[in-house]
């Protein structure tokens, strides 16, 4: 029962501490009084009796403290006392406290925010069952006649079918592709174009996910002859169908065809990317030929490894199957001979991994700078309080005790900074999620226990770092010296500021690194945006149209008629200078390629083929986009439906595949087909993606009728955005059920495609500017402090005839030396570290001399400005005033 009793005492010592303190005083007074009474009884006079009693009793205050030291929670009580002292000291200097907390908040906040993002996106395991066993499977193609290796190519339907049937290493394997579907208007809601996941029926079981409501696909749903079935995402269900479970087993219309809603996925489920809002069955959606062809690479495959099987063994297993397929049809060069795989997580976040880690490193630097700055401020305070501390040490104040108080101050600053930083991080993370809502795994970013632990860890580290670094300054060997020093110290500042200067140099060095990284990214981004993508980008409007296949069958005349009428009507609108239609405009992405061969050329070696990006365009497209026709002409007016037999190639296509000969009049045979397309023109190169080199491109007539989607481009003399509405009215007028998506000017479209780069650059530049600001504040603070310390010395110098310019130079050199050392260190470190971001740079060398020079100049300028004010003030000193200051 003793522990119970002790527990009761412990509880009492928490809640009855004040009471116990009063009682202790009573107890001691009782003792003293009894002693006095005894002394009185022994015949002493009252004063003497009291004095004698006190003498034998000892120091009551000390006795009280010693007794209290035996109580439970004494350590905590002392801690609270130190806290109170620390808080009081900080409150006395609100300016310093506010600056220090702000600096810490910036450092901690940015780190916590970035860590939250990194953890959510890169570190958290996927929420699928046993995610480590999930692989994304690719074909590994080496078929290009021009050389080249395609280690992570898409999987052809027929290859998947063979893998699925013959493999021995996967417990299950599924297929997925992202498509666009038009959801018809219903219940008063407008039609809209959605991204959908087209998946094999076993995708959900392979991932180990159950629908939240209803059921997933069955093998029976996943066939061409089955009725259409669709699984909705949680968000779409909530947004479009009001979260009503009654939607289950009801029909909705996708691309004008009926689909039964069979299930709703859980809210967290996102696959294959955050834009997919519904899922349909792939064997129901895709034509049989696509599902059985071995050379039409259009899917991603996901496999779940059998227990105990390694990824390498499984890949080898699939490669054996691929090789057999490859060898069974050696005349088709586009059947890959090997397979490849990557972990699912790697596949999903591989692209954002490096930028995120670079950002995290940048915030780490920022935090270090913040800590150095706060340490710097603390050192300044410690120096100002040097005499007080020396006196306390001389009076017997324990060194540990003083250190504790010191640490407590930096601890308080860090905690306050951490709290403010957490608020900041909260805002930043929400902004990040809103800005980057299309980024892989963005949905799994949230504040959780690990983030909380990280925050606490960062706070403690900051407190220890800035506390210990500044405590190093309190050197008690020179205790006596500091007591000896008369208050009229004449030249003391310089030596004492050494630690601060070292901290400053480190701070400047880190700042230089951040500035250089930001500078490189800025330059790279500038290059990216300045690249000529090969067409007019000014005053060009684009919008995406996708005609539902049920009403606009391909191949067939329906889409051709629609597109032709649309272009006629759009071109007739006032303000429209030119208009055209193409499957994808420059900057919109790779989209797809066709294998082809040239009829006039000898056959390629077996197993090798040629391919190039393909586009379908109407005859007016090149003129509308300002893509120059270098030779020949555009498609003829007769190029429609079955009569379409012309092709246009890009300049680099001509160079690559017709070296030293005239391509005009030659014929292309597409995908091993029968028809020949005569090359009638050569047009200028365009880039399919900003930041990618122009690739050979082949154009075919859009009016051949086998395409039912496209991007409409409209060029105007001015103010092209005002045409968006009239054009949409024309489309609505022609088919009121047609949703129009991605209405963007060319500039917006290109901006969107470089969003990642712009985002990374902006963020890193922000960090760099912040750290530059911190470094400037640090320099200013140190020099102001030194100046104040040396006021009398300078006063004497001036009184003795020193020139003011000399004084100015003296002070400037004093302040700029740490900046110069830091700059040198920073430049050296950057030269080593810059290659780490090489893959994020576009047409920019990691050791770009202009960037390095520019950073050095900026830093020197800022440092000089920061030093100028205090140096100037000192050089203008009135010697009489200065000598009178103390």
């Amino acid at each position: 029962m003793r522990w119970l009793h002790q527990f009761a005492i412990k509880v009492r010592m928490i809640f009855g501490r004040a009471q116990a303190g009063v009682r202790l005083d009573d107890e001691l007074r009782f003792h003293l009084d009894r002693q006095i009474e005894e002394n009185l009884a022994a015949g002493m006079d009252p004063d003497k009796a009291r004095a004698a009693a006190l003498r034998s009793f000892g120091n009551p205050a000390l006795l009280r403290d010693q007794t209290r030291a035996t109580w439970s929670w004494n350590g905590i009580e002392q801690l609270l006392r130190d806290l109170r002292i620390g808080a009081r000291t900080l409150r006395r200097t609100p300016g310093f406290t506010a600056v220090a907390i702000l600096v810490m908040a910036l450092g901690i906040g940015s780190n916590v925010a970035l860590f939250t993002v990194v953890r959510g996106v890169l570190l958290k395991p996927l929420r699928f069952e046993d995610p480590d066993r999930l692989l994304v499977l690719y074909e590994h193609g080496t078929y290009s006649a021009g050389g080249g290796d395609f280690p992570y190519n898409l999987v052809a339907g027929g290859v998947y079918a063979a893998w699925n049937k013959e493999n021995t290493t996967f417990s299950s394997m599924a297929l997925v592709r992202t498509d666009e579907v038009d959801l018809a208007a219903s219940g008063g809601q407008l039609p809209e174009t959605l991204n959908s996941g087209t998946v094999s029926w076993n995708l959900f079981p392979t991932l180990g996910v159950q629908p939240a409501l209803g059921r997933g696909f069955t093998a029976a749903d996943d066939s061409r002859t089955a009725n259409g079935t669709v699984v909705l995402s949680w968000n779409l269900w909530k947004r479009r169908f009001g979260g009503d479970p009654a939607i289950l087993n009801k029909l909705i219309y996708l691309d004008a065809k009926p689909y039964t809603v069979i299930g709703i996925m859980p809210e967290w489920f996102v696959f294959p990317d955050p834009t997919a809002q519904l899922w349909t069955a792939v064997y129901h959606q895709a034509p049989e030929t696509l599902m059985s062809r071995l050379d039409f690479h259009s899917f991603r495959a996901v496999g779940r490894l059998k227990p105990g099987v390694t990824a390498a063994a499984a890949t080898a297993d699939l490669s054996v199957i691929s090789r057999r397929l490859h060898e069974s049809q050696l005349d088709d060069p586009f059947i890959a001979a090997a397979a490849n795989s990557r972990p699912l997580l790697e596949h999903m976040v591989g692209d954002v991994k490096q930028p995120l880690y670079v950002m995290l490193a940048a915030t780490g630097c920022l935090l270090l700078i913040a800590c150095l700055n706060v340490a710097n401020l603390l050192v300044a305070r410690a120096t100002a309080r040097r005499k007080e501390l020396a006196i306390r040490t001389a009076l017997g104040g324990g060194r540990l005790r003083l250190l504790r108080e010191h640490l407590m101050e930096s601890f308080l600053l860090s905690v306050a900074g951490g709290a403010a930083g957490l608020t900041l991080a909260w805002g930043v993370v929400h902004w990040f999620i809103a800005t980057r809502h299309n980024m892989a795994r963005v949905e799994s970013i949230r504040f959780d226990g690990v983030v909380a632990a990280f925050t606490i860890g960062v706070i403690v580290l900051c407190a220890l770092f800035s506390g210990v670094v500044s405590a190093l300054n309190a050197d008690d060997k020179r205790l006596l010296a500091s007591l000896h020093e008369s208050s009229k110290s004449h030249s003391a500042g310089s030596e004492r500021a050494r630690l601060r200067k070292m901290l400053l140099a480190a701070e400047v060095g880190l700042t230089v690194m951040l500035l250089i990284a930001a500078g490189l990214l800025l330059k790279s981004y500038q290059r990216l945006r300045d690249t000529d993508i090969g067409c007019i980008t000014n005053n060009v409007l684009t919008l995406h149209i996708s005609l539902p296949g049920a009403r606009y069958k391909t191949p067939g005349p329906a889409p051709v008629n629609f597109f032709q009428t649309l272009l006629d009507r759009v071109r007739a609108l006032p303000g429209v200078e030119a208009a055209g239609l193409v499957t994808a405009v420059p900057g919109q992405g790779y989209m797809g390629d066709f294998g082809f061969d040239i009829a006039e050329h000898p056959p390629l070696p077996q197993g090798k083929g040629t391919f190039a990006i393909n586009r379908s365009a109407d005859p007016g497209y090149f003129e509308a986009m300002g893509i120059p026709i270098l030779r020949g002409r555009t498609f003829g007016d007769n190029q429609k439906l079955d009569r379409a037999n012309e092709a246009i190639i890009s300049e680099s296509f001509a160079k690559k595949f017709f070296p030293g000969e005239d391509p005009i009049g030659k014929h292309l045979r597409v995908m091993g087909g029968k028809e020949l397309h005569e090359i009638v023109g050569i047009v200028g190169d365009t880039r399919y993606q900003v930041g990618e080199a122009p690739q050979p491109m082949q154009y075919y007539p859009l009016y051949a009728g086998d395409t039912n989607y496209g991007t409409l481009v409209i060029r105007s003399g001015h103010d092209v955005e005002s045409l968006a509405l009239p054009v949409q009215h024309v489309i609505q007028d022609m088919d009121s059920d047609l949703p129009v998506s991605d209405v963007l000017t060319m500039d917006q479209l290109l901006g969107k495609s470089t969003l990642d780069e712009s985002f990374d650059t902006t963020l890193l530049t922000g960090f760099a500017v912040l750290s530059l600001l911190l470094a400037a504040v640090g320099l200013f603070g140190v020099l102001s402090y030194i100046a104040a310390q040396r006021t009398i010395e300078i006063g004497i110098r001036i009184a003795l005839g020193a020139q003011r310019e000399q004084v100015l130079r003296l002070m400037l050199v004093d302040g700029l030396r740490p900046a110069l050392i830091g700059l040198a260190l920073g430049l050296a470190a950057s030269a080593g570290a810059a290659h780490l971001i090489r893959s994020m740079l576009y047409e920019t060398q990691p050791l770009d001399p202009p960037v390095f020079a520019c950073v050095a100049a900026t830093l020197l300028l800022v440092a000089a400005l920061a030093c100028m004010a205090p140096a100037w003030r000192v050089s203008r000193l009135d010697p009489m005033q200065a000598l009178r200051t103390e």
Partner: protein
Amino acid sequence: MGKPNDLVQGTLDLLILKTLSLDAMHGWAIAKRIQQVSGEVLQVQQGSLYPALHRLEQQGWIKAKWQESETGRQAKFYALTAAGRKQLEAEAANWSRLSAAINLIVSEV
């Protein structure tokens, strides 16, 4: 500042426990009692008495109660708990062993 040396720490605990085993008493009385019983040999320093009393109380070996003292004032009376009684036995036995051992060494000439 330092602890008085005339009573070894552990010994003071033993003396307090032993004294309280007879009756509940307040601090002053405990000091007086130890002094009297030891024939004025042992002087308990107040500087160590109260920390010791509070420590024993925190450990649950003695418990305290405020009640009227012989002079009519409220005083804090300490009494042994059951656990304290056991502790006393253990410490007393320990002490006998220790002092016998020391005796052996000291008396052997």
